[in-house]
């Protein structure tokens, strides 16, 4: 499937930067905020010229690929109507300073993307674009083959989805590293060495390889062993 139109849920810092990168790569971009379209129209026009501010229903229905870039705590408010059968990239992270204290979002037994997949049972959820800071995403996007190009990790359950998303990440200016099924997305969450990392592919590979031995990896392993008892 060729991706032509990208829908972005969330007109905040991350959503706007991803819109800018997708526009630069030649995609059609639709952006939906949490409120009425008029509320974000000017923001989209000025910060992401060429993108179109639309409702979430329109963004879902008219896009080939949808990126979730809203606060994670709001995931259950997502308009699911147009998302059946769609490829959905989860770029969200638990950020307690915005999301509030939410134990359901910090459960060590599952990745937050698995929660999102459960909420969108008929969509193909892939975790991507979550671990690099939004200003690094903006600064570091470069064409394929550029020396010291930076890499983004992704996790998902379906091989075809992964192929499409890797090609999309490449178009947006980054190398990519597939780290396994959606459950492995926990390796990209806050608290991991990768979270906030702005590094090349070999460095990213090394970080993922040593995750199990890291304090965060150990903490997760311990929690899972205890839960299994």
């Amino acid at each position, binding site marked *: 499937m060729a991706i032509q139109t990208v829908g972005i849920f969330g*007109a905040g810092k991350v959503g706007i930067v991803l819109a800018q990168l997708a526009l630069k790569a030649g995609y059609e971009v639709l952006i939906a905020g949490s409120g009425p379209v008029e509320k974000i129209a000017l923001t989209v026009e000025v910060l992401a010229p060429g993108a179109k501010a639309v409702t979430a229903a329109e963004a879902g229905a008219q896009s080939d690929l949808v990126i979730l870039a809203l606060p994670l705590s709001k995931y259950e408010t997502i308009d699911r109507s147009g998302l059946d059968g769609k490829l959905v990239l989860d770029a969200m992270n638990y950020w307690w300073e915005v999301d*509030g204290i939410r134990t359901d979002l910090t459960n060590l037994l599952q990745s937050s993307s698995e929660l999102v997949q459960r909420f969108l049972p008929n969509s193909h959820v892939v975790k991507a674009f979550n671990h690099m*800071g*939004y200003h690094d995403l903006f*600064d570091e996007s470069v064409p394929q083959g550029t020396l010291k190009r930076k890499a983004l990790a992704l996790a998902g359950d379906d091989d075809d989805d992964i192929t499409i998303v890797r090609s999309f990440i490449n178009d947006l200016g980054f190398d990519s590293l597939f780290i396994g099924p959606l459950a492995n997305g926990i390796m990209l969450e806050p608290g991991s060495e990768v979270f*906030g990392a702005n590094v090349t592919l070999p460095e990213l590979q090394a970080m993922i390889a040593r995750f199990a031995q890291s304090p965060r990896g150990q903490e997760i392993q311990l929690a899972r062993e205890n839960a299994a008892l």
Partner: protein
Amino acid sequence: MAPEKVVLGLDTFGDLPKNSDGELMTYAQALRQVVKEAVLADELGVDIITLGEHHRDEFAISSPETVLAAIATQTNQIQLGSGVTVLSSDDPVRVFERFSTVDAVSNGRAQVILGRGSFTESFPLFGYDLGDYDALFEEKIALFSKLLEEKPFDWQGELTQSLKQANVFPKTESGHLDTWVGVGGSPESIVRAAHFGFPVILAIIGGDPVRFKPYVELYERAAQQFGMPTHPLGMHSHGFIADTQEAAVEMAWENIKLAFDKIGVTRGWAPMSREHFEHEITSGSMYVGTPEVVAQRMAKAIKTLGVGRFDLVYGAGEQPASARERMITLYATEVIPRVRELLAED
């Protein structure tokens, strides 16, 4: 904007510095150190000093306006601001009362910068729900904007108090308390500030500042749409200045890393790498080096973004008090005049 009109200020969160024996100061000593630094900045002609409100163990300033009141009585010309006042977890009426009081004791030099704050320790501390983060700010900024009219008013609150013909004192002598909004990069916050006609200061703490250029246009276009006046935007970024490049870079690396990594632990991001730091001081948002290097980079950022104000954040980490004082001296006597010179060049 005319080079002599560009506001060049300092900003600190009141990090605990080291004393001459290399020991970390107590909170009380750290607060007296900030007062001393502000007096120095005043004597050397810095335009403004702003103090951030934090409720964390590495920062001594939780009540900026109390420190500003102390500074007010020992200074003559420097403007006295908060950077920022976390309005969401405060009472707008009390914020107005406290800052109009600072304005009185300082002969009209007070400025309040309202923000949502990038830290949120204040929410549980003052009994607010983090889940109301956005709604609290939205309602309180609207209430604050009513208070600024300095006339009796009615207010129907949802998350705030309801008021009937409330009259709040002291009134300012100028009739207007200087009020800005601090924004960390959320487009929605820019539009909201424009809606109320407030000037905006951008916290640019990472990446190439040019990224913020469209925000200037967004602010202006939004103000136009709401029929509100526009003001030149300001920016705030971290920095360190010393007599040699090497001394500046090493002091900044050690201490800015310390400060950022400490915050990183609570937010789940990885420690700062040397490569990231070098990127930030070369082409990003940290202004580190000799007075000439810092002045060149500040002038470039001011020109690129077209801002009318630059507040340099000083004191991050556990810098010796003597290094902080030296930085303030170099900033006032060498960086500021050089920035104005560079701005006048074209």
